[in-house]
């Protein structure tokens, strides 16, 4: 599955990634509207972004969250009912929400930010499908 990988030690906290993300998806430079967020912890940079683990998929009451063909976890905003349970249940705190919108948003591994990163702290990578955390419903209900 395709995901945005990171090497926090290389991050220089320039904020380019946040800018490109929020501009691309919300047409505004506002880090509160960026799927990737650069924070600082104990004086070191911390890159918070979805790793496409998929644990949110089972939380959604209307199955608005699913994994696409490339393995990317995506939200279907048309059917999302805005409950934000996925936000509260993301163990990595990488599901985003902003009060101007009634649906959450998240990284979809588009890679635009990686292209803008001057220090190669973020980059596109692949990981094995076995790392997906969501239930296989056909197996759950075949017992």
């Amino acid at each position: 599955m395709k995901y945005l990988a990171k090497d926090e030690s290389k991050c220089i906290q320039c904020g380019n990634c946040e800018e490109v993300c929020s501009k691309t998806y919300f047409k505004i430079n506002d880090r509160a509207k960026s799927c990737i967020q650069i924070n600082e912890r104990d004086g070191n940079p911390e890159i918070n972004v979805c790793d496409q683990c998929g644990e949110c998929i089972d939380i959604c009451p209307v199955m608005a969250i699913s994994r696409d063909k490339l393995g990317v976890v995506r939200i279907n905003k048309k059917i999302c009912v805005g409950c934000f349970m996925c936000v509260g249940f993301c163990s990595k705190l990488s599901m985003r929400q902003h009060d101007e919108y009634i649906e959450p948003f998240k990284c979809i591994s588009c890679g635009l930010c990686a292209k803008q990163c001057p220090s190669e702290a973020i980059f596109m990578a692949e990981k094995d499908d076995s790392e997906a955390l969501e239930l296989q419903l056909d197996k759950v209900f075949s017992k």
Partner: protein
Amino acid sequence: MDIRKLKENHKLLKEYKYELGKVDKGYANRTLYVNISNNTIKEKPVTDFMKDKFVGGKGFGMWYLWNAVTPTTRWNEPENEIVIAGGPVCGITQYAGTGKSLVCSLSPLTDIPIDSNVGGYFGPLLKFAGFDALEIQGKAEKDIIVYIDGNTGVVTIEEAPLEAIDGHVLGEQLTEMYADNEADKRNVAVVTAGTGAEHTRFGLLNFTFYDPRRKVTRLKQAGRGGIGTVFRDKKLKALIIKFSNVKGDLNNAFDQAIINKTGIKYHKEIHDLDSKQNNMRKIGTANIIEVMDAYDLLPVMNYQYGMHPDTQKIKSTVFIEKYITQGVQDGCWYGCSMACAKAADGFELKTGPYKGHKVTVDGPEYENAAGLGSNCGIFDPEGILELNFYCDTYGIDTISFGTATAFAMECYERGIINKEITCGMELNFGNFEAAVELLHQMSRGEGFGVTVGQGIHKMKKLFAEKYGADPDFLFDIGMEQKGLEYSEYMPKESLAQQGGYGLTNKGPQHDEAWLIFMDMVNNQIPTFEDKAEALHYFPMFRTWFGLYGLCKLPWNDIVPADNKYTSEPAKVPEHVQNYLDVVYGVTGKKLSVLDMIKESERVYNFQRIFNIRMGKGLRANDKIPYRSMGPVTAEEYESRKERYDKQLAEKIGYDPEDKTIEEKMAVMREYREDQYEKLTDAVYKRRGWNSNGVPTLEHLKYLGIDFPEVVEIVKDLQ
């Protein structure tokens, strides 16, 4: 059966078109009134008076019902109504437990108003379709359905002769019929009863929601008080609502951001702490089966005992490991992260008309496991699931069924009734086959099942008058009050909980106060005044959920990590604040805790006076059977001899040495009955009532509900 054929046989009796509306700060500001005697459909405005005095939900239900009936109206008369209302918070999706409907009607069991709280999607979709409440009055001649199309603004009354009556089949049929496709099914919500509701007095209503993962129509129950019986008596087969495009902001909240923030904080709390606390997401309310047993509080064999060695066979982990599907989102409304609506999938039925079918059983909830299981001496998880399933689909309240069956079983074991009376059934404790056959009889309307289905109140009368049983003994062991069967907790050793059951509006149901641990184990409310304060605060606090369309469980079935450091952990102060914040977010109304209690007090006192108006609601009606207060029989005394002897010596100053059990029981009884009377005095006083349980005029004035028609009822009882 072919869905098209079912639909082709519908006969349109009435069509009504209405303007779609927009919800404003939690209110649709309209009620839909449907009279099925003369097929009248109209809209009524929801007034500021109603909002100020009754808020919504159960408050609206009580107000409409009050205006619909007279003191002589009984449950099966056309004037009686079924009112379904959510409440101003109902339908938000960001906080857990915000999709509840409150259903009110005159009860076939109690002849006074009953209110029952239920999940499923009907309430929220009703509001988005344009209505804060649905008021149904009248009686149809043939089986009908009422359909509300909230997408196009059309309401129809249709004869529906061919559809099934049992809830799990009818729910599926109508969901299929009114949904455009698989994805549309979650936009359809159905209310049904079942065949058992036709032949008993404790029929319930099933409220559906479609589960897109299981691909089945799930059922939640408005269980208490026989509203399903009223529903079928009106020849209502189903209510259906359709509304597509549910979003998270349809309440047009005063400040959505506050709701989002509070909801996400709560979701995180559940995510982090549920598995360390109550495991609600794994097993729901059934997590306490073994807890109740460990503390001697699980009703066993008609509340004789509080524990049993076989409880380990039905403990929650058995259900988690073997039956209940894990890890699947189980909320009964969007955004419920507590997700306690558990289900056993692929469960193969062993008896009855659906024998061999593999079904999804909604449950077991704690009440079902205790009522259908331990209280009937049935310590068999598959037996409990089977009874649970059939109760739901037949439209029978698991609590009343469990408690009434337990009573009949004790009567059988004591020889009060025999095989001749039970039509050949060996109704011993633990006999699953007999219990499930009673249920099937209730569905078919035959045999001893119909007798049990009349409820304990009627059974007591019948056994005494027809079979010569001792009425006093039946009064002692028949666990009902005001006509309603007790829910499944053993209040014997907790005076406060005796009040929690006995000093209620609708009858002994634990939704008003559940104080067993605070009282008996924690010893936090030792004096009568302490108990009275708890029996004021908690019933009022809990009533409040029903005014707003909320579920009570998210309040205290999880607590914040630092709750224990607060001054009153039992109240879960942070969660109370969450609710005040959410109400502010939705309505713009800033409430304090005192305001909150006062809102409830209005409706609570109004309901009390409604009871008085219907001929109950006085002190005499708050008496409780002695089985709920202490040991009725020598066996019960023996089972807790050490505890009882100690109490005689220490609390009553009566030396139990060399006394017979009968002597000791008599002294104990006198003491406990006196304690209950003293408690009653203290609680009435705290609630602003006189010693006969009548709200004082001064209190009604303070609450602002001293309307002339209310004062009229109580002025001569001052």
